[in-house]
């Protein structure tokens, strides 16, 4: 069990060291076998992982990885959970909605019925947005730019659909505007990351995206 965990840590360390330090990663892997034989694989693997993390800011690929993780953990994941919260009816404060928030309000019997009828569809749209953001976070960390574009297109389409539905139903779209601004910021960051990735790995630049 400990050895399996240690091997997983060594794999993680190898990934963190990046292409520029591939030789050192292999050197660590080879010495890990000695450490495993001497029954000290875990401390050795932890040390290698700490060393690899320490090397991250020293090479471009590592810096790209750090910034990608900051973007994902600091923006995409919180946004995804907010949207999932809206979809599950847990939040109405941030882009959420209920019938009472509409300008017509609950006092308007003509609007209450269609608004209530549309609620399941709107909840599904929010859930889709949240799920798409989680997917976007995953593919962004994998640097799979084709799937990043697809996830981005899905998010844009879902946001637009949500906006149209909420406008038609006279629901409060003010908070959706905040979401749109967040999406614009997020898109800017992702475009910058894609360009940075293309500079570091010119041979694997996203050909289909035109970035």
């Amino acid at each position, binding site marked *: 069990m400990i050895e399996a965990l240690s091997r997983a840590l060594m794999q993680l360390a190898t990934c963190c060291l990046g292409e520029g330090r591939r*030789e050192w990663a292999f*050197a660590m*892997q080879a010495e890990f076998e000695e450490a495993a034989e001497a029954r000290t694989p875990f401390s050795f693997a932890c*040390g290698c992982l700490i060393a690899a993390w320490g090397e991250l800011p020293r090479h471009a690929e590592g810096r790209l990885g750090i910034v990608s993780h900051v973007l994902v953990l600091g923006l995409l994941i919180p946004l995804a959970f907010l949207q999932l919260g809206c979809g599950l009816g847990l939040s109405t404060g941030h882009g959420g909605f209920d019938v009472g928030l509409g300008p017509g309000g609950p006092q308007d019997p003509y609007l209450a019925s269609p608004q209530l009828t549309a609620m399941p569809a709107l909840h599904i749209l929010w859930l889709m947005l949240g799920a798409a953001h989680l997917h976007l976070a995953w593919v962004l960390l994998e640097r799979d730019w084709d799937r990043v574009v697809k996830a981005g297109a899905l998010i844009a389409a879902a946001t637009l659909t949500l906006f149209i539905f909420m406008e038609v139903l006279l629901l409060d779209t003010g908070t959706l505007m905040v979401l749109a601004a967040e999406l614009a910021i997020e898109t800017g960051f992702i475009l910058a990351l894609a360009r940075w990735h293309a500079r570091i790995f010119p041979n694997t630049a996203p050909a289909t995206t035109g970035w």
Partner: protein
Amino acid sequence: MGRNRRPSKQMLLLLEVLSAHPQQWRHGYDLMKETGLLSGTLYPLLMRMTEQGLVEAEWREPEQLGRPARHVYRLTAAGVTLAQATARSNATPDQGFALA
């Protein structure tokens, strides 16, 4: 691009161990055991010292079948010079060091 910087305690320890037998190639795990440094300290140090031209590294065929090739390390001429300078500085501690 030399600049005077005093080597760290860990680097001095590694220099001392490597300079004991400057011609001898040493494995990373053996260096860990001999210096008492952890892998998280030893490898970044070896990387820096290799980049500074103080240590050279090469691959060696495994001694046991089925094992991966291992990296071995030894001091370069510049590394030996620095090791000698640090040894001398024990007598005159204020002396500076020029790292490449």
